[in-house]
């Protein structure tokens, strides 16, 4: 059973062994509105915790996507580049952004669980 955690930059991360899958939260997708463009990091790229790892754009504006942890990008989800609207339909499922090889497991400890994130997101949107 994979474990899901959340960042303050509104990414979710699901951990399976030493590989984590990252995407943007349902709350983030709602706040963005209709997603019309997605840019993903290159496969093989090393990224730093809270560093930029992609771009998501709505009709209104462009926003950076950050990685919640340090590691190497092992896979990216081309289907959301081809169909950005998928991000609004299933942000925490089929519309994941990238997979990353975890470098430092202790970084996961500072991320939020679902209940804490939901509280954080609610406070944030008011």
């Amino acid at each position, binding site marked *: 059973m994979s474990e899901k955690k959340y960042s303050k930059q509104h990414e979710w991360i699901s951990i399976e062994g030493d590989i984590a899958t990252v995407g943007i939260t349902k709350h983030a997708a709602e706040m963005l*509105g*209709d997603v*019309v*463009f997605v*840019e993903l990091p290159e496969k093989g790229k090393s990224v730093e915790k809270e560093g930029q790892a992609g*771009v998501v*754009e*709505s*009709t*209104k*504006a*462009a926003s950076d996507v950050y990685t919640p942890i340090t590691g190497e990008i092992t896979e990216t989800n081309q289907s959301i*580049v081809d169909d*950005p*609207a998928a991000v*609004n339909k299933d942000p925490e499922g089929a519309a994941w952004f990238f997979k990353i090889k975890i470098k430092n497991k202790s970084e996961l400890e500072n991320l939020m669980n679902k209940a804490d994130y939901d509280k954080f997101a609610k406070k944030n949107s008011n």
Partner: protein
Amino acid sequence: METQRTALYDCHKSLGAKFVPFAGYEMPVQYSSGIVEEHKITRNKAGLFDVSHMGQLLIEGSEDLALELEKIIPTDLKKIQLNQSKYSFLMNEQGGIYDDLIITKVEKGFNIILNAACKNNDYKIINNSLGNKFKLTFYKNLSLIALQGPKSSEILEQTINGVSSLKFMNGNKFSYNGKDIYITRSGYTGEDGFEISISNELVEDLAKKLITQDVKPIGLGARDTLRLEAGLCLYGHDINETTNPIEANLKWAISKRRREEGGFVGYSKIKSDMNGSLTRLRVGVKPEGKIIAREGVKIFSEDNKEIGSITSGTFGPSVNGPIAMGYVKLNFSKLGTKVLLEVRGKKYDATISDLPFYKKKYVR
């Protein structure tokens, strides 16, 4: 300055609006269905927009008023017919644009619709220019709503008898609940449609009636994607005090007589730009692929020389791709010219493109 609300604020709220601050007003940017859906509804059926933040100014007078206004507005106000509307500008000394506007000849004089962010400054400029010879009324008790889309005529006719016979860029007085309202056939979406000037007391009643008739409320988000697909300028972005109407590719909005005779502020610049001094031009820019080029993005020639910049850009839901407009050096303004756009440090292919991106369906 305290944030203002239009008379429809509560109505928007009950319809699930998400608000943003805009030109000192709390305005709906979208409702629950989202910008893309609102855009498509307007293109396919009809959408209702609250544009009450815009200024509605009445200036009373006749021929002598037309002559005075022609000093700051470069349209033919002698030839304009009763109830006819014209798109024009409030000009500055350098030939730049203080504001773009719609001016309509009415029985008492002229009605002018002004951009929300500019309206107070416009009032001062107009008032100073006219001296104290004419009566100006800045309506605070009037709302302005726009019904836009291919079904808008059929729908509005059900509530307001006679509107469907209006011609594009013409208006008239109509009656609603026994009160006078003024309607013009115009808009900012590239669709057939109407702008309705109605009292703050009556506006919610009319808005609710229209919304039940297969019309959806539309926010500022879709208003922007619709106008950009239609190739229409947004003041403060595509035009401003430093762009003149000739380089903004809006020469058509200066009446022929006024282009020839002048007699308005900034004319010397307009004249010289019409006679070979022009150095840059507003053009449509179509990025290849999906990349969105927004305001401020630099435009380069194929051999990597900077030739201009984007003034507005977004994703066009009806075009189903990215669209933009901006200014380029004149020798790169020809349709089909290949250019490069620098987005987040990388260069992307794009083509100088014809405007509008989406073909208009106005009723003439």
